[in-house]
């Protein structure tokens, strides 16, 4: 089936999807609660959209289209409150984090939906290993060409988003030494990586995609697991590299950073994207996953190396007046705080050290997600 025509979307509008963990409040392991949660949430109108994900211990929420930080944050908070209230009734904790620190992938159960069953049949254990939790941010584009331009201009900033959102240091009870171990699971898929370097939508749709479709490898855009992926039926590009942050406030901040960044890029005052930008892409991305904010970024043109921290701070300064125009200065301030104090990955590591167990780490993540809702004195520690 040929790819759809790129729908017009108002420029710089936002939509956020979050994949969240469903954890048993009895033993803090992942629990196959999504059918029960969905049944309970279905009884009342939900302040957003909630759907199952590939395994039954994941749940995905998505917001409506927003133009600014305030509206987006308000909806995310309402969604969080609804999820937490439902979870409390079911002895289920909801939390962020890119991976669950000690779940065993072999114990996961595939949610029974045709697409998931297909994916599971095709990819074998990779499907169960895909019990990872990410944030996807959609940015509206007025045309397919604008989408492709943004997609390739953003590649240089992908490591920044990885470092700022990293929240998956532990896998199977061990410290992986990565800040974002989640992305290693994504890269295992054959159709992961990045979009081919074409700047015209026409060339992409009728050239590349048509070709790929004829080979029989892909049927739709959904089969690609790229870091940034165009979504023609929404009229957006989708950034998929972020780990699910531990709070919805952080999620909103990341989305608005992307919005401000796109506004800056659309000025077209920077040198245009080139194929050679991708020479350093894989390695910069690895640095961000492994070292987070302390990682090293290499510029493909000037060969200058600098730390991700410095790079992020420079960009944050650069988008300041754009963020003011969009009304999301609080988001940028929040990200300054993250650069100063460390990402969610370092928070989780600290919690592990303090509590002495992986369960304590999960307990802390659950508490952090609840934040401004009615604090529930869960078992101390």
């Amino acid at each position, binding site marked *: 089936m040929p790819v759809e025509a790129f729908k017009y979307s108002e420029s710089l509008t936002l939509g956020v999807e979050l994949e969240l963990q469903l954890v048993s409040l009895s033993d803090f392991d992942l629990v196959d609660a999504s059918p029960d949660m969905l049944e309970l949430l279905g009884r009342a109108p939900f302040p957003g959209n909630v759907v199952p994900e590939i395994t039954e211990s994941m749940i995905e929420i998505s917001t409506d289209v927003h133009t600014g930080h305030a509206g987006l944050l308000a909806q995310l908070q309402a969604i969080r409150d609804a999820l937490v209230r439902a979870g409390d009734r079911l*002895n289920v904790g909801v939390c962020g984090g890119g991976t669950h620190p000690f779940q065993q992938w072999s*114990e996961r159960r595939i949610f029974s939906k045709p697409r998931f069953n297909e994916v599971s049949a095709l990819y074998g254990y990779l499907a169960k290993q895909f019990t990872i939790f990410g944030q996807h941010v959609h940015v509206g584009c007025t045309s397919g060409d604008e989408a492709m331009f943004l997609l390739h201009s953003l590649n240089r900033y992908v490591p920044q988003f990885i470092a700022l959102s990293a929240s998956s240091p532990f896998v199977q009870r061990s410290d992986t030494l990565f800040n974002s171990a989640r992305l290693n699971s994504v890269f295992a898929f054959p159709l992961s990586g990045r979009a081919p370097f074409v700047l015209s939508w026409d060339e992409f749709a009728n050239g590349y995609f048509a070709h790929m479709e004829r080979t029989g490898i892909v049927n739709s855009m959904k089969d690609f697991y790229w870091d940034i992926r165009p979504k023609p039926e929404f009229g957006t590009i989708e950034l998929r590299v972020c780990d699910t942050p531990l709070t919805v406030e952080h999620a909103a901040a990341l989305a608005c950073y992307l919005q401000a960044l796109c506004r800056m890029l659309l000025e077209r005052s920077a040198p245009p994207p080139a194929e050679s930008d991708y020479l350093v892409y894989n390695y910069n991305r690895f640095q961000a996953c492994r070292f987070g904010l302390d990682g090293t970024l290499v510029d493909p043109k000037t060969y200058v190396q600098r730390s991700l921290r410095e790079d992020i701070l420079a960009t944050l300064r650069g988008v300041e007046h754009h963020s003011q125009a969009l009304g999301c200065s609080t988001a940028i301030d929040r990200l300054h705080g993250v650069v100063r104090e460390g990402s969610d990955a370092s928070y989780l590591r600290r919690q592990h050290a303090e509590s002495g167990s992986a369960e304590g780490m999960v307990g802390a993540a659950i508490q952090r997600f609840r934040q401004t809702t009615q604090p529930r004195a869960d078992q101390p*520690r």
Partner: protein
Amino acid sequence: MDWLTRAADLAWPMAIAAAWVLGELASRATRLPRISLYVLVGFLLSHAQVGLLPRPSESAMLFVADVALGLILFEFGYRINLQWLRVNQWVGASGLLASVTTFFAVLWLAAAFGLDPLTGALLAALAMATSPAEVLRVVNEQRGSGQVTERALHLAALNCVLAVFVFNVVIGLWSFQTFGSVSQAVSSSLLVLAVSTALGVVFGFSVPALLRRLGPLGPRATIGLAIAVLLIVALAQALQASPVLAALTFGLTARHRRVALDPAQRNFGALGDLLTVLLFVFVGATLAWSRVAQGLWLALALVGVRLLTQVGATLLFARVGGISWRKGVLTGVALSPMSALVIVLLVHARSRGIDLMDQLAPLAGATLILGVAGPLLTQLALRWAREAHPSPEP
């Protein structure tokens, strides 16, 4: 006759071996839970039937069976989140309703069959029980995960505590009536409960603290916990308290201290599996066919009534408690087992000089029926709720 006594020493190990082998073979063929088969083997080889095994209350096996049940109850207590019962009060309400209605329904049933009130009360108290042992073993075997699993576990804990409490109170009344001694009455009920709970709480605070002092133990922490269970069961027996309540309270309290029970050590590993075989063979071995036959009709009625009240209670509060009608029904079904708990309570009573086995003959029948059918019902409930996820047979 020397060789006879020597042969008798072999009885238990042989029985356990036979039970395990038959359990492995038959469970693959019939898809019955293994523990159902252990109960059957124990029943067949029992002193009262074939005469192979010695009388349970006279052997050291009682202590080992206590430890086996203690380990399961500890792990059970460890998995319970009391906070949830406070947040979602309908769960606790359905448990309370189930216990209360079961008690009065069985009381009425006993009267209808012509039993005297006190015997009826004893029967009713024990019928309230849901045995956590079978429920947890089946949940772990099936790797249950979901609302029916959660609610079955929490309600089983609630039923178990209520049943032990009421049973001890009724025993107190019974022994007062029988022996006319107030001290017997008192010692048989409230003191037992208080001492057992205190024991559990003390262990629950001190053992995790000790384990933490010994340094990062990782999976070896489970050995420490198993030894602690051994100690608490021995202490409870020595103090004439309830090892059941002590072990459960220990688990509940220890959870708060967060010494993590590594999931790989669920069931306490091979130790737990071995002791489970023994426990359920033991349960079967206490049952005599003569008693089973004697009270069979009442036993069947009891099983039926119990199922009705439990399903009714969970169904009533299903929707308001946050789950579907279907899962409400299945939760009640999953609460069917009662055998291990009932037998251990009765054998303990007997070793304290209160022999209820003959009086409560209908219970023998109910125990046999539910010993085999109980775990099967729990397994079916989990399967029908689509919450079972057994590891693929190699």
